[in-house]
């Protein structure tokens, strides 16, 4: 699998990252290299091997349904670039 410039531009758009044409070319080359490297895995025959998600030895740990968190408004808002009273604010987004 190899990447063309169009695909790189699309990936950047989905990630909301603006790239110049020169940057697109840079990333295309770099990402192509990474994919090529990971592609070596295709040399392994995995017929009849089920996909492994996490460790096969464990399944999800569950927690009790109890309120143990929250009421930490200041901490939650501490990284907000902008706020208004108890809210985060962002540039207006209306669809």
């Amino acid at each position: 699998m190899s990447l063309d410039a169009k695909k790189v531009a699309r990936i950047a758009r989905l990630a909301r990252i603006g790239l110049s044409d020169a940057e697109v070319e840079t990333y295309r080359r770099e990402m192509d290299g990474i994919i090529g490297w990971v592609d070596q895995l295709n040399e392994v025959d995995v017929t009849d091997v089920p996909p492994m998600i996490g460790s096969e030895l464990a399944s999800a740990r569950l927690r009790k349904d109890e309120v143990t968190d929250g009421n930490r408004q200041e901490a939650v808002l501490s990284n907000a670039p902008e706020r208004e009273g108890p809210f985060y604010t962002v540039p207006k987004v209306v669809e």
Partner: protein
Amino acid sequence: MSNYRITGNTGEWEIVVGMEVHAQVVSQSKLFSGASASYGGEPNSHVSLVDAGFPGMLPVLNEECVAQAVRTGLGLRAKINKFSRFDRKNYFYADLPTGYQISQFEHPIIGEGKVEIELPDGEVRVIGVTRLHLEQDAGKSIHDQDPTRSFIDLNRAGVALMEIVSEPDIRSPEEAGAYLRKLRQILRYLGTCDGNMEEGSMRADVNVSVRRPGEEGYRTRCEIKNLNSVRYVMQAIEIEAERQIDIWEEGGTIDQETRLFDHVKGETRSLRTKEDAHDYRYFPDPDLLPLELEQSWIDELKAHLPELPEDKRARLEKEYGVSRYESAVLTAEQSVADFYEEVAKGQDARLATNWILGDFFAALNRTGRSIENSPVSAQGLRELLGLISDSTINGKIAKEVLEDMVETGESAQAIVDRKGLKQVTDTGAIEKSIQEILDANADKVAEYKSGKEKLFGFFVGQTMKAMKGKANPALVNELLKKMLSA
């Protein structure tokens, strides 16, 4: 099969509808964090650092949310998948702090099930359920507080939702309404979702397409998002179907797209999203291990499942002899059914049914109260009906007593004592009263005797009136007959 058709300019059309219902899971805390899942609260107070997407925070699955999904699956007679998995659905929006929603894409917790709906004409249809999966809710964006900014409240972010997807089995707006109502009823019985549509606990997306009757396969569909009432669902389907029919009939084609329903203008509108907005790039969430369920745990949940609406209905019909219609009304809400049973158990069930569906419901309507904060308790109503059954009071007086109970909150017995409403069963007193009526209306007695028998009702009425409604009606009838034929 449904006969619902829309007539266009070129002939008849049938509609095809599938629904995705988002139901908020009843739980104390969120799906992956220990913050409160309760509605309301100061903005951003029911939020943990997990919900706010702080770096390094890890999600841990809430056991009760899993149990609620399994209970719902059992209630929908659906396949419970012992293996399921969580995936990330990636998109950017200001009220989604992590940039992805944790959902279940490839391996949902619940597989195929079914919902039986009953239409007004009594016809029963089965609507297939494709799947049910667990996912997180997003936060809330508030757009009307500032001209240039949107305000974000993350209290909802991370609350557990069940997305219940139906097969495209629905063929009319009425069926869609019936399906949503039935689903809501089942979830409320199970206690897995409160079904409160005003607070957004249940919202529906509907997929609508049209085709000619008898046509094979489906045409392109459009999805109408975020409908929060049964009425809007029904209206949106009809309006969207008509829009599509116009386009087909003019020789156009339908683009598959997401649309919004504007109930004020009565139209659906395209949501002009970018062409790649729906590339969610799902992948397994590396922070979460697969969810594996033990059969013994599923069995235990099943053993403690509450009685479902259909089962309760059948039982009420059998145990209390109520009709098919009556059982539907009595089981619409579990609280009504509970109230009914508390009143009817070990009593004259017919009397209880008639009183609850009649005067009692009327009293609720009149006072604008619900069964949960009924002005008359089940015990209180039971006592009132007991007084009818043992002939302490007659039915007419009982209506008056019920009104008094609603107003004063006093017990039936206390009201009967206070107002002296005890039924007169003393034949001597009734005979005396009847004699006075007959004497005062000699002309009518003569008419009656010459064959005008419907005057009998007049004599009954006069006697009851003279006795202030307290006479035993059966005795009045009996004695009147005797005395008129004397």
